[in-house]
C-alpha cells in the first residue's frame, strides 16, 4: 500500500471569513458547516471548520474568495510570522529617478517643413518613441510622419480605433514613464477630454498637439482657434489644468513640442500644444536644436519591474478627505505652473498705445498689422501669449500703464479675450480696461488688412486702467 500523503490542513482566519458558505459546498468530506456565532470583529458569522478528518485536499481554500480567509497552512504560518510587520508595499526602496539626458545633435541643414511635421520632429528630438493617434484633418500629416519615421528609430506607432482609445493608450504608456504624444484636431480633442482628466488626476505626462479647426460640431477643416476654452478651462471633469502652448511658426511647433515634453514630465501633467489649421499645414524654415533628449525613467512609473512594482497610477481616492487633499496638491501644482510657465512674445510693445493681443497664426497677421500701423504713425504693439494657460499676465500688466486700448485678434468667438479678461480680473486690473476685438470664425482668419482697418477705425481715448 502506497503511503498516504499527509497534506497540511487549511487554517480558518475567522475574522476574515465572510460566512459566504462557498467552502461548505466545496468540501466533499462535509467538514465545514455554517457557524452560529457572530464574530465580534467583523460582525459576520464565520463558518465552523472541523479539521479532524481533513485530508488537506485544499478544495475549500480554492473556493474561498477572501485572500486571507480560509488559507493554506503555509500561508497561515507566513502571516503569523509577519503579523505585526507593516509590509506595504513589500519592503523595497522606491525606484531611483533616472533623469533625462541630453546628447549633442550634429549640425544639419535647416528643414523646410510644415507645422505638423515640425511638431513630429520636435517630439522625436524630445525622446518620444511612442505615438498613438486617430486620423483627423488637419492634423493627420503629423501622425503620418510619425508612422513613417518611428519604425526606423525603434519606436511605436499605433493607429488607435478612436480618439478615446488613443488617450487611454497614452495614459498607459505615459503611466509607464514614456514620453508619449498624439496629433488631433478639435472634434478629436473633444473626445480625448475624459482621458485627459484621468491623466491629470493620475498625474500622467503626455503631449497633445491639437491642430484646431472650425466648429462647433463637425464644423469644417478650416483654421479656427476653437479649442482655447477647452484647453484652458475644460480639460475634462474635475479641477483640471495643463500648460497650453500656442506656437505661431513651424519653428515654434518644433521648439514648443520639445518644451511640452519637458514640462509634461516636470509637472507630471499633460501639456497641450494648440496650433490652428493654417499653422499645421504651413511650411516654413525650421532650424534644429543643438541637442536632443534621451528620456530617463521616472521613479513613479509603472514599468513592470521590481523597482517600480510598488507604484500605482490611479485617479480614484475613495475617501473624501484623501480626494480633497489630492485636489489641493493639484491646485498647488497648477499654481507653480502659473508662476513658472508664463511665456509671451512682445513686439514693439515698449511704447505701444494700442496693444494687439493674438496667438497662433492670427498673431502673425497681427504682427504684420502692427508693422503697417507703425508705418502710418500709430504706436501699436503685439502682445503674443505663447502660453495661453497660464496667461502671461505678468508681462502684460506693465504695458497697460501706457496702452490706450487692447485689441484682441482671434479666430474664435472671444475665447482668447475671455482668457485675457480672466487674467486681468485675477490680477485686479480689469476695471476700466477697454478691450476691443477683431474676430473671424468658421475657417477664416483675420487678415492683416482687416486688423489695420479695425484699429484705424476704432480709435479710443479711454485709458486702460491697471491696478
Amino acid at each position, binding site marked *: 500500500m502506497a503511503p498516504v500523503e499527509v497534506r497540511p490542513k487549511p487554517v480558518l482566519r475567522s475574522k*476574515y471569513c465572510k*460566512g*459566504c*458558505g*462557498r467552502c*461548505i459546498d*466545496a468540501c466533499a468530506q462535509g467538514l465545514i458547516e455554517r457557524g452560529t456565532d457572530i464574530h465580534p*470583529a*467583523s460582525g459576520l458569522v464565520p463558518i465552523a471548520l472541523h479539521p479532524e478528518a481533513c485530508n488537506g485536499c485544499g478544495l475549500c481554500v*480554492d473556493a*474561498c*474568495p477572501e485572500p486571507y480567509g480560509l488559507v493554506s497552512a503555509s*500561508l497561515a504560518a507566513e*502571516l503569523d510570522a509577519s503579523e505585526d510587520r507593516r509590509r506595504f*508595499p*513589500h519592503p523595497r526602496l522606491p525606484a531611483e529617478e533616472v533623469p533625462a539626458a541630453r*546628447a549633442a*545633435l*550634429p549640425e*544639419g*541643414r*535647416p*528643414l523646410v517643413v510644415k507645422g505638423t511635421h515640425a511638431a513630429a*520632429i520636435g517630439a*522625436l*528630438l524630445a525622446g518620444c*518613441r*511612442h505615438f498613438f493617434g486617430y486620423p483627423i484633418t488637419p492634423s493627420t500629416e503629423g501622425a503620418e510622419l510619425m508612422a513613417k*519615421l518611428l519604425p526606423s*528609430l525603434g519606436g511605436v506607432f499605433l493607429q488607435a480605433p478612436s480618439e478615446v*482609445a488613443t488617450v*487611454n*493608450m497614452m*495614459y*498607459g*504608456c505615459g503611466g509607464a*514613464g*514614456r514620453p*508619449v504624444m498624439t496629433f488631433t484636431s478639435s472634434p478629436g480633442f473633444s473626445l480625448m477630454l*475624459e482621458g485627459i482628466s*484621468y491623466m491629470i488626476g493620475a498625474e500622467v505626462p503626455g503631449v497633445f498637439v491639437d491642430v484646431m479647426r472650425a466648429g462647433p460640431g463637425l464644423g469644417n477643416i478650416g483654421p479656427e482657434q476653437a479649442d482655447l476654452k477647452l484647453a484652458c478651462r475644460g480639460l475634462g471633469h474635475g479641477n483640471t489644468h495643463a500648460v497650453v502652448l500656442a506656437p505661431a511658426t513651424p519653428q515654434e511647433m518644433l521648439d514648443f513640442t520639445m518644451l511640452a515634453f519637458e514640462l509634461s514630465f516636470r509637472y507630471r501633467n499633460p501639456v497641450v500644444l494648440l496650433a490652428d489649421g*493654417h499653422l499645421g499645414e*504651413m*511650411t*516654413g*524654415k525650421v532650424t534644429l536644436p543643438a541637442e536632443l533628449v*534621451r*528620456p530617463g525613467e521616472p521613479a513613479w512609473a509603472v514599468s*513592470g519591474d*521590481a523597482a517600480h512594482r510598488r*507604484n*500605482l*497610477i*490611479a485617479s480614484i481616492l*475613495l475617501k473624501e478627505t484623501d480626494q480633497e487633499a489630492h485636489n489641493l496638491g493639484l491646485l498647488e501644482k497648477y499654481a507653480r505652473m502659473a508662476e513658472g510657465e508664463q511665456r509671451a512674445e512682445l513686439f514693439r510693445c515698449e511704447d505701444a498705445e494700442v496693444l494687439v493681443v493674438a496667438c497662433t*497664426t492670427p498673431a*502673425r*497677421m497681427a504682427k*504684420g498689422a502692427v508693422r503697417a500701423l507703425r508705418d502710418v504713425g500709430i504706436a501699436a504693439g503685439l502682445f503674443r501669449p505663447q502660453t495661453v494657460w497660464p496667461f502671461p499676465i505678468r508681462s502684460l500688466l506693465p504695458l497697460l500703464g501706457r496702452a490706450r486700448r487692447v485689441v484682441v485678434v482671434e479666430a474664435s468667438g472671444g475665447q482668447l479675450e475671455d482668457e485675457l479678461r480672466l487674467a486681468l480680473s485675477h490680477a485686479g486690473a480689469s476695471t476700466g480696461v477697454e478691450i476691443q476685438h477683431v474676430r473671424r470664425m468658421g475657417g477664416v482668419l483675420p*487678415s492683416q488688412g482687416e486688423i489695420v482697418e479695425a484699429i484705424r477705425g476704432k480709435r479710443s481715448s479711454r485709458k486702460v486702467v491697471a491696478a
Partner: protein
Amino acid sequence: MSTFYERFERHDHAAGLKAQSTHYCPGCGHGLAHKYLARAIEELGVQDRTIAISPVGCSVFLYYYLDVGNTQAAHGRAPAVALGHKFANPDSVVVSYQGDGDLASIGLTEIMHAAQLGVPITVIFVNNAVYGMTGGQLAPTTLMGQKTTTSPLGRDRTMGQPLRMAELIAQLDGPVYVERVALFDAKQRVRAAKAIKKALRLQVENKGFSLVEVLSECPTHLHLTPLEAQRWVKESMLPVFPLGVKKDATPTDWGTWQKADFDPDALLEAVGARAPPVPRFCSGFPHGLFGGDIGLKLAGAGGDGAQTAAMLIARAAINEGFDATHIPSYGPESRGGTSYADVRLAQDEVFSPDVPTPHVLVAFNAPSLAKFGLAVAPGGVVVYDSSVVREPPAFDASVRAIGVPCSEIAAELGERKVKNTVALGALQCATGLFPDETFLAAIRQALQGKSKLVAVNEEAFRRGMRAAEGCGADDGWFGWWI
C-alpha cells in the same frame, strides 16, 4: 508570501479588518478570479513584471490587493491602457481585468480592437450578468427575462439580447486563446485557475492575446445566497454562455519588439537634415521688386502642381537664408478639386503668411485666374497658362500679365506635369526674383534621389523663362515631372 499585498494599505488605509479583507460582498466571484490570477502570477514567477489594469466596476479596487505594478483605467478603456503599457515595456506582463459592463458595453471598441491587434496581453473578463457597483442594473450580458433595476419586469427583446463575448472574440484573427470558465463548483474552479494561468503564460511566452471569460456570482444583485447564486450560474447562465475553449490557435511567436533608438545621427538621417546646406547665389533680398516682403499665390486644380511649385519657391528663399512660408488650401474634393498656395517671402521674418493681395499670381486655369486675378496688388505680375486660358480678364493697368503655354510646353517635353516648372521659369523671367541658379539648385534639392527627373525639370524651367520672353523654342525634350 502570495501575490496579494500582505496588508491592503490602499483599502481605507488598512483600517481594522480592511487590512486583510476585500471590499467584495460575501460570496462574490471576483475574489476567486483575483486569487487564481494571483496564483498564476506567482507560479509563473512574473510578479515583478506584472502590471494589472483595474477597471471601473466592482473590481475597480483590484489594485488594493494585487502586489504588482498597478494602473487604474477609465470605464471600458482597460485594454487600451494595457496596450499603452505593453508597448511601453514589452517585457511587462499586462493584465486587463474587466467586468461585463466595462468590457461588453462601454468598452466594446477597445476590447475588440485590442483582441484583433493580437498583441500579447491577457484579459480576465468577469461576467456576472448584472451591473454590480452601480447597484444591479441591466448588463449587456443580462439574461432574457432576468430582472434588474433597469429591467424591473425582466429583460425582453426591446432591451436587446445578451452578448456572448468569448464567442465574439474567438472568431477574430488576433487572439491565440479564448476560453469561458465558471466558478460554481470545485471542478469549474480548477478549470478557471488553469485557464487564467494559461492565458498569462501565453503572454509570458510572447505568443499573443488571450482572454478568459469567467462566469461569476453576484449574490447581492441576484438577490440570492452565494450558494444559490452558484446554482443560478450553473442552471441559468450556462445555457446562454456555454463553457469551454473557444479558440486555441497554435501559437507562433507574436513577433519581435523594437528597441528605441536615440542615436543623434539616426535621427538626423530620418528627418532628412543630414545633407550639407545648399549653396547661396543671392546677394540680398529682392526688396526693390515690390517694396518689401513678397506675397505669391499659385492657384489651379489638384494635379496642376501649384503646391509643388510653391514649395520650391519657399525652399529657394530659405536656401538663400531668407524666411518663407507656404500655406496650401484645397477644395473639399479629395482629388481634382481646387488647389491654392499662399507663399510669402521676407528677408528676416514673415509676419502675415496669408496672401490676400498677391504681388505675383500664377494661375493654372481660368477659374483661378478669375478668382484671384483682380486681387493682384498694383504693380504685380500675373503668370497664367495660356494653353488653357484663352481669354484672360482685363487686369489693372499696372499689372503685368504674361500668358505662357505651360501645358503645351510640358506636353512637348513629354510630361504634362512639369507645367508647374514651366510656370516657375516664366515667373522667374518676369520678376528675376532670385538668381536662376537659386531655383535650379532648389529643383535639384527637391528631386534628390530622382536624378532622372532633374534634367527635364531644369529644361522646363528654362523653357518657361524663354517663353515668357517670347522666345520659346521647340527642341523636343522628353522626361518627367517633379
